[in-house]
């Protein structure tokens, strides 16, 4: 068993960031910095998100009308932009999640055929 320190931090696959953002927004509107923190925290810091790359992704999602943006106040009482999941975004999240599950399973089977057959 490897320890957390020994693990390499891996870069996100293209397209997955969108999925993670959508997932993060399920619990309610969040501002940009908090989204980055949540992704890092929830992935045990394995996924290395260059925080800046969050923003083009957010704007892409806005453009596709999967999320909306609104003004709000952050926890330390500063003005901030809050991102909120739309109904279309919720549907997209569901579809992408199931797609992802299939894909991950398929890749896993290729990469470890022996384990699969052994089970």
């Amino acid at each position, binding site marked *: 068993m490897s320890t957390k320190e020994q693990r390499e931090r891996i870069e996100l*696959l*293209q*397209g*997955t960031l969108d999925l993670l953002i959508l997932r993060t927004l399920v619990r309610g509107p969040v*501002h*940009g*910095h908090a989204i*980055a923190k949540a992704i890092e925290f929830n992935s045990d810091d394995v996924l290395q998100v*260059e*925080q*800046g*790359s969050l*923003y*083009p992704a957010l*704007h*892409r999602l*806005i*453009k596709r009308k999967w999320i909306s*943006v609104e003004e709000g106040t*952050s926890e*330390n009482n*500063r*003005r*901030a*932009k809050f991102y909120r999941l739309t109904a279309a975004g919720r549907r997209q999240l569901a579809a992408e999640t199931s797609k992802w599950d299939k*894909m991950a399973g*398929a*890749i896993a*089977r*290729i990469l470890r*055929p022996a384990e699969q057959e052994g089970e």
Partner: protein
Amino acid sequence: MKKRERMMKDLEEDIREHIETETQDNIARGMSPEEAHYAAMRKFGNVMRVEEDTRDVWSFVWLEQFGQDIHYAFRMLRKSRGFTAVAVLTLALAIGATTAIFSVVYGVLLQPLPYTDSNRIMSVFEVNSGGTWSRVADPNFDDFRDQSRSFQSIAKYHADIASVSGASEPTRTTVAAVSPGFLKVLGVQPILGRDFGAGDAKKGAGPTVLVSYGYWRQYLGSSRDLAQSHLKIDGGLFSIVGVLPSGFRFPADVDLWLPADLDGENPSRTSHNYSVVGRLRDGTTVQQANLDISAIARRIHDTSSEQGDYLLKDGIVVPLQDAITGKARSSLLLLLGAVGFLLLVACANVANLLLAQASVRERELAIRSALGAARGRLVRQYFTEAFLLALLGGSLGVLGAFWGLAGLVALAPENLPRLESVSINIPVLVFALVLSTAVAAGLGAFIAARATSGELRKGLVEGGRGQAGLQGSQRVGRVIVAAQIAITLVLVVGAGLFGRSLMKVLEVNPGFRVDKIVTMDVSLPWVDDPKAKAGQAIFFSNLIDRLKQIPGVRKVGATSGLPMDGGLPDGMFLLMTQNEIPKTTDGFGPLLQQKERIGNADFCVATDGYFQVLEIPLIRGRIFDGRDGANSPHVAVISESLARERWPNQDPIGHTIEFGNMDGDLRLLTIVGIVGDTHEYGLDAPPRPTVYVDLLQRPHAAITLTMLSDADMRSVASAARGILQNLNPEVAAKFQTFSQVYSTSLGSRRFNVILIGFFGITALLLATAGVFGVMAYSVSRRTREIGVRVALGAAPSGILRMILGQGLRTIFIGVAIGIAASLALTRTVQSLLFGVTATDPVTFGGVTLLLVGAALLACYIPARRATKVDPMVALRHE
């Protein structure tokens, strides 16, 4: 744009806020403010790039991605050069052939006639008792003109060839006699001079003529002073009053227009001499005009004294364009259908190639998909590649169409109307573009649906083992091949039926010899005066005598109508004895009512030499000879079919007939001989009963001389031209060989056979390649499986049977569908066939064998390869 600016401003704020928050967090963790800010910046990454990427989100990304797709597609096409070359060439061939055929269809059938509001211009015909349409007799035309309310203007016209002199050189020119208003109907005005006025058409008016732009340039030196120019047309002197615009030549090939009926109208209601055109009044429909004309025609029918088969029964109005192109329509649409089939077969081949190509790329796509490429993006990639292929193929095809069209026009039968308006023009190019786009969309949709259906994703799961490999894709491949075989079978059956029709036509004995005959068309002015007519007879007699002197010329004859060259006039003759002859043709009416007295035949003026040159056999009696002078009793020779039809179980020789309604000479004709039938109207038309009269007794102004000659046409023609020049310098002649005339008559049949044959053979090659491709691919995918079978003891013959059996199933399904489709479709071309039925078992059997043979061969090669699979190599494979 405004939105983009707003979003970018928001972004800046957001980033500032983000870094600030992160810095605060870091300070909370115990960093110095400076350190905290630095760490936050590092963690955030390159602010510039983030802004750049976000800006891209709000810019026209699709345009950029389109560029990427094209770039990527080009790279793919370049990488698999063989695939690209085959696919592009296949598409180029099919799109090029379709475009070329479409250009003919467009030019002949679709393009509006080049006249103002040409869809308002109608043709008017008489309908006779048999339901066929014919031209209009003078008094009937007058009634149509005076009584109908549907036309702004209506006019009659009739074109004929005349000898014209007075310009820079004597010519044989097509001249149209037209009634006033002709140009008004067509919406054309002279560019120089004036149109005919009422005065020009009056009986006895000073003869006037309008000339075509081309004639004016070539023979009148573009002189603007028309008053100085006169033309001698068939002996009469005409003043030129106007020049018509460039490009105007209606009816076809006409260069001179003169007023009709300068000698008065023909009072007969059964002499169908004139074509009629009219321009519809605004707001009048074709149906209204039809009701109008039909009512007038039936009124004429009910009240006329000239009852009989030749009197009109009804009238009909059709758009001029349809009247001109009527006969060509079915043949051209047939060719368009055939080339459409070829296009389908070609597309099927390319679809199969794409399918194979897609499965080669399955892993690449699976990985791209795994790496987050959206399905839409992959679909777009496929479409981009299909578009690139189709546009490359289409461009190449259009280039090929330019070249192919030249060949088509050269090959086209002479009787194809409006051939001069056929070209690769803007509408044709638009058609090619739309066609390429449709092909691209079809192929793109097909391959995108196949490739992203999930089946390919399985490819990733199955890894590179590629044994079962895409069962689904192979099934689709086989369906495509079966469809290809079916379509090809229809095409080749069509080609076979037309080919066999042509062969049957060529087997028909025309009834005359064709080779070594030089023909010479000469026309003298039309005259009524018996003395002048006799003079013409002497002229021709002299001409024939002198032509016989030309070295190499063995025999010379003359006729008013060469077989397969436009036909002869036909009419009703009367069986009569000497003391029954009426004084004028008016007395014929009652006699024509007596069924037992009348017969129906073509009327041909000829000389004895004509029968000798064409080797039309004498069955009984004699042909014309020295006894038959101008003043001796007039004689006739009749064709075998007339003898059989009119005098069954009797000897017609010695009977006398009255056929003066054809040439105005009421002297009786005594039948002296019976000759063999000739296929006057083409080999595929039955011989017409014919009455031949002697040129020396019944002179005729327009004559074709026939010379049986061992010398070549050019030397005979130049000698003959000299002789004619000597006899009468105002008369021009046109020379041809009889073989040319004869072969022209087969032109449209040959055209169909060559084109459909070409499409059929091409489709056959494509379909064979398709079968081969699918089978070879299937075998290569099954190498491992076959290896296992061989390892387990399967004999090579078993493997061969297995692979062939799989191929045969596909082939038979295709053939079965193809035969069913052919049976349904060939019915529609029955009228274009000759001597074979649309379900000709020989054609169907032969074509099926040919196709199955070719397809089996295409299966056999990969099947052989399968038997050579070395199990060790196959199992180690990969």
